[in-house]
């Protein structure tokens, strides 16, 4: 039969010779192979102490961004929710009232913004859809919780620390996540 690759080898069905039937030589060969592995470098990464570098396009849990003055960028336009193939994002919009200019960047903001992390497939389409640079996928991953409810992340879970008032918290968050 014509082989597809030149790697095919015919099965050797010749009866084993006396030395082959003894198995001893092959056993010793095998033992030398395992012994040589004692001196090989272990590929193990000892996880909590050591971490593997993420690739630059890694997509982890979402964050809601703020601008330089600490105002929320999200205007609750809903484009991320529309883009989301898993329908994991819901939000409710609200109008900014007088005196809230330091909290929200534009006249409209998200009063409620929820991502269901169990539904989310971490495709990053929300990030691409966002016209206001508000939603980003971070490098945090593997959330753990006891209840399903705990996986529905609201605004307090998603918003990054305010760079004006919580500069140190932001720095540590970046340090942990980077």
């Amino acid at each position, binding site marked *: 039969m014509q082989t597809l690759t030149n790697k095919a080898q015919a099965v050797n069905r010749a009866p084993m010779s006396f030395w082959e039937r003894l198995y001893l030589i092959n056993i010793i060969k095998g033992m030398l192979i*395992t012994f040589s592995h004692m001196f090989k470098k272990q590929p193990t990464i000892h996880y909590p102490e050591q971490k593997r570098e993420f690739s630059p396009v890694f997509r982890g849990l979402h964050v809601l961004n703020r601008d330089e003055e600490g105002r929320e960028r999200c205007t609750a336009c809903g484009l991320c929710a529309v883009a989301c193939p898993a329908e994991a994002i819901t939000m409710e919009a609200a109008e900014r009232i007088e005196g809230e200019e330091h909290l929200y960047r534009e006249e409209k903001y998200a009063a409620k913004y929820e991502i269901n992390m169990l539904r989310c497939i971490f495709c990053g389409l929300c990030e691409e859809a966002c016209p206001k640079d508000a939603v980003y996928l971070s490098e945090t991953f593997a959330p753990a919780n006891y209840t399903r409810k705990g996986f529905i992340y609201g605004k307090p879970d998603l918003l990054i620390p305010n760079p004006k008032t919580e500069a140190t918290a932001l720095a540590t968050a970046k340090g942990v996540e980077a």
Partner: protein
Amino acid sequence: MTILSFDWAFVVEKLIMIAIIVFASLGIALYTTFGERKVAAILQDRPGPSRAGPFGLLQPLADGLKLIMKEEIIPTHANKWLFILGPGLAMTASLMSCAVIPWGTPIHVFGRTVELQIADINIGILYVFAVVSMGVYGIMIGGWASNNKFSLMSALRAASQAISYELAMGLALIALLMTTGSLSLKTIVEQQVTGHWWNIVYQPLGFFIFFVCAMAECNRTPFDLPEAENELNFGYHQEYSSMKLGFYLFAEYINMIMSSAIMASMYFGGYDLPFFDETTVAPNIAAMIGVGTLLIKIVLFIFLFMWIRWTIPRFRYDQLMNLGWKTMIPLALFNMLLTGALILAKL
């Protein structure tokens, strides 16, 4: 009261010896489980247990604690007494064989000469054989009492395997006994200490047969058919939980230590440190060096056991029987005849 007039200090001395040796064996067995996991890991490019304590050194304690805390289950239709007897018997049999191993030259404490051996009986090797064969009863009783067909199959396998390989083991030993002329392990070791060579030089084939059979006796891979997970689920200890399972697993490691000690004593000079004149140091220090030497030999043998385990896959059952009856026994008989002929020819 003449009946009480024997040497009480002797009794105390022996009791202390027994306590030390039993607890030392248990301690070594505990760390052999750790060693097994580490060796397996290193041979497979893994780090092995490394979380409990520095370098994972507390791992065996954690394992033991876990086994003790587990729920004790006795199946409803199991034979309760035999079910409990099985692991106890396996453990007792494996611990009993340490009685005749000479651990070193005598030491002198409190004006007494203390032999570093629990009992120097003149049929030492026969005693070991008798006790080791009892170990298979632990497996058989456990497998039978579990009322589980897989356990029973495994027990059957263990019994037939042990019988097949004990034959070749005994025949290999006969050849050794023909050259030494003594059944006492102490005498055999002393002959090697005073003589020129260790027995391995006179009996290389005999040692090889003995080693393979010892591996089969200890149910170690490639002869671990009683524990063949892929055919028998878990083998004879399938229904066992908690420390009863622990006893079975532990007995295997103690068996391994004891067979290593016996092989070291019979073929590798026991407590004899080569190229070292023991008379140049104080007798007590010489004895300690002897104990250390024997322990190092045991550790090397255990490493060899593990190394083989993590290299070779398990035999198929017919291959195991073929090897035992068609290769090992004829080979052992040949070795016996050859030794006899060489002795006759005064070589």
